[in-house]
């Protein structure tokens, strides 16, 4: 290769891009929360829609009747899930990074979500969608009708 290639950078590398940070408490142990997120039968049960999950690192998943797809990047049983994650409306090849950290608490588990790199127009839907599609149904599934836990901590930006 010659050294004449042109590199054009059109966005500052110092920008964080889009992100959502949420923390949710569950009255269930980290292993139960982890299993609910990684076991396709449990995921389908709490989400109310079909789910296929290859629960190996690098394995593909398809959730909510194929609306959410991606691959597992890192799995640490009962502690951490990192996924390359996309939803159907996004352009081909667009993925984001989702990280669930499961921290044991006195009452059960604090799930810390960090989601980054999604299209800017999706900030509002991602912010509300996590609670509506994932965490509220997951809480109902795990706590079997128990009341909500501590008030969630949230943030979002672009």
């Amino acid at each position, binding site marked *: *290769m*010659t050294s004449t*290639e*042109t*590199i*054009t*950078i*059109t*966005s500052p*590398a*110092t*920008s*964080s*891009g889009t*992100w959502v940070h949420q923390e949710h408490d569950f009255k269930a142990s980290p292993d139960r929360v982890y299993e609910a997120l990684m076991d396709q039968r449990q995921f389908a049960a709490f989400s109310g829609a079909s789910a296929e999950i290859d629960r*190996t*690192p*690098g*394995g593909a998943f398809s959730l909510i009747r194929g609306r959410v797809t*991606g*691959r597992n*990047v*890192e799995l*640490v049983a009962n502690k*951490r899930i*990192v996924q*390359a994650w996309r939803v159907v409306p996004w352009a*081909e*090849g*667009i*993925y*984001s*990074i989702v*990280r669930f*950290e499961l921290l044991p608490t006195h009452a059960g588990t604090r799930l810390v979500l*960090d989601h*980054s*790199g999604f299209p800017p127009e999706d900030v509002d839907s991602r912010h509300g969608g996590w609670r509506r599609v994932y965490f509220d149904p997951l809480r109902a599934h795990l706590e079997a009708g128990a009341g909500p836990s501590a008030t969630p901590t949230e943030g979002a930006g672009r």
Partner: protein
Amino acid sequence: MQLHAETILPAAPRRVHDELADRGPTDSASVVVTTDIDPILGGAILGVAQRDMLEPLGGDIEVRDIELVPGERVVQTWRISDWESGVYSLVRMTLMRDGEGTRMILDRVGPLKKFLAA
């Protein structure tokens, strides 16, 4: 942090794709040592991808393929060896023929700056 960059590489899109694609086992990410990559093509790609990541080019990168479309697109997660555990960036490289070479459009998202603060 996010980055959008474009560069022209002196090889056909399929060769660029094959150079980028991780050919390791699917159940584990491969660790790419920069000195093991084609010193011309791979080195240039890494140079673009790592730009502004505050890391020297000689660092090891753990790569996992997310989506491969031969000759068209490579999506991978990248992780620099000394990042905090669980921290990744996502790199999408879109390949288009440009004369005898390839125009590579690289979009990198993450990691969030807070994860690199330590």
